[in-house]
C-alpha cells in the first residue's frame, strides 16, 4: 500500500525567511501527491497537487512543492514565510479511493 512520511513534527521559521516542510512517499505505481493545510479548529484545505508533468507545482497562498522522483520526495516550500502561515500541514498520496495522509507537520512562523 502507498504511504507518505513527514519526518518533522515541528518546523519553526522566522517571518520573511523561506520555509520547507518535508514529505517522502512510497507507492507502487504513479504517485498522485497532495498537500493540505489545517488551521486551528478547521477542516483541511487543499493547497496543491502533483499529477504529472512539471516537477515544480504551484498552489494556493504562494506555496509550491517540488516533486523529486529519484528521492521519492514532495517537499512543500514558500520563498517568504508569513505569520499567518502557521498551521498544521499534511502530505497525502492517493491511489483510487485510498488516500493516505502523513502524521502532519506543525509550522510556526515567528515575527
Amino acid at each position, binding site marked *: 500500500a502507498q504511504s507518505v512520511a513527514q519526518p518533522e513534527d515541528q518546523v519553526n521559521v522566522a517571518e520573511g525567511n523561506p520555509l520547507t516542510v518535508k514529505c517522502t512517499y512510497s507507492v507502487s505505481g504513479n504517485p498522485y501527491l497532495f498537500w493540505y493545510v489545517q488551521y486551528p*479548529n478547521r477542516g483541511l484545505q487543499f493547497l496543491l*497537487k502533483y499529477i504529472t508533468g512539471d516537477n515544480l507545482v504551484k498552489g494556493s497562498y504562494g506555496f509550491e512543492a517540488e516533486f523529486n522522483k529519484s528521492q521519492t520526495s514532495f517537499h512543500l516550500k514558500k520563498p517568504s514565510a508569513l505569520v499567518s502561515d502557521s498551521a498544521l500541514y499534511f502530505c497525502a498520496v492517493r491511489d*483510487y479511493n*485510498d488516500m493516505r*495522509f502523513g502524521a*502532519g507537520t506543525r509550522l510556526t512562523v515567528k515575527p
Partner: protein
Amino acid sequence: NAGVTQTPKFRVLKTGQSMTLLCAQDMNHEYMYWYRQDPGMGLRLIHYSVGEGTTAKGEVPDGYNVSRLKKQNFLLGLESAAPSQTSVYFCASSLQGARLSTDTQYFGPGTRLTVL
C-alpha cells in the same frame, strides 16, 4: 454555496451510547468520505461512498456504520461508543473519486467527539 458541512460540531457520549454524525455537501459530488484524526497519526479513512446507495470500508471501519441514502448526505453511525473512538471526525467529498485518482477532496470543519 456552503461546501461541506458537518453536524454536530461537538459531542460527548458515555461508553455504550449510540450517535449519528451528519455530513452534507452542496457541490453535487459523487464521492464522500469519513475520516478520523488522532494526534500524531494524521487522518485515517473510516468508510467512503462512491455514489448514492453505495458504501465501502476504508482503513479503520470497525465500530462504525455509514449510509448514503441521498447523494448530498453521508451519515456516520456509532452503535456502541467506546473511549477508543474519541477523536475528531472529518467528512470530505470529491467530484469523481476513483475514476480520477487526482481528484481533490474538500473537507468539512470536523466534529469533536469525546467518549467517556
